[in-house]
């Protein structure tokens, strides 16, 4: 199977999963939605195994890594900025709805930063970084 065929099958599978989930939502049937997603995932897994070409090379991994990093930076900064706005306006207008939203967004920002730091540490150790290299 070449890359073009794999891409076509991937698009078809995604369409099938989307349609199943849409039908499941209309009929309020969570089992159908879960079954659709799981079948799609299993099917793609086997198709991927059959594909002989390298689907994910270093270049793709590098792009994905950079995109993930950029997404993290933009998302975290946006949430942090929004939390400050909500906290400030909540305190100024004495509105607890805004204030609580600001607090929750602040916690989300901290959670995101902590998660990133931990994941960074784990991955860097996995690829052989020693403690001396960090200092």
């Amino acid at each position, binding site marked *: 199977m070449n890359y073009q065929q794999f891409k076509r099958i991937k698009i078809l599978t995604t369409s099938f999963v989307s349609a199943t989930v849409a039908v499941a939502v209309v009929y309020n049937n969570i089992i159908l939605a879960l079954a659709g997603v799981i079948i799609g995932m299993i099917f793609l897994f086997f198709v991927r195994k059959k594909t002989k070409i390298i689907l994910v090379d270093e270049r793709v991994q590098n792009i994905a890594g950079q995109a993930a990093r950029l997404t993290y930076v933009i998302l975290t900064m946006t949430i942090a900025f929004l939390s400050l706005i909500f906290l400030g306006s909540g305190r100024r207008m004495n509105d607890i709805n805004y204030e*609580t939203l600001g*607090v*929750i967004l602040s916690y989300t920002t*901290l*959670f995101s930063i902590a*998660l990133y730091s*931990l*994941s960074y*540490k*784990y991955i860097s150790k996995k690829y052989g970084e020693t403690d001396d290299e960090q200092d």
Partner: protein
Amino acid sequence: MILKKIDKNLITYIIGISIIFFLFIFFIICAQIGYDVKKRCEMAQSRYGGECVDALMYQVADDSSQYGKNSAIWALGQLGDKKALSFLEKYDTGKLLPKRESWNEGISQYELRKAIKLLRGGFNLSAFIWRN
């Protein structure tokens, strides 16, 4: 033998993720409790006026409506203001509680005693987070 094969780095990562996730959920719950208390205060103040604790005490004392009395007692317990202690103690019947009563059947003795316990200096970790 099996433990040696398991990646130590991975275990540390999973434990770290679990701790961070637990802390995140805990802080969100604290924020939610704080929000609930402030919302009860706001509702009581809009009806009875005055300071938050006074408005909540008015709500508990108001016999014209049973609605919201238990949530007002809960909020008083969460706020931890000592001036509500003697007021709440008046409502304690002292009877043994077979089970937790429903909030729709007048003042819940279970909720009342929980609030009194907090006002007497009981440990309330979530309040420490959302009050500061």
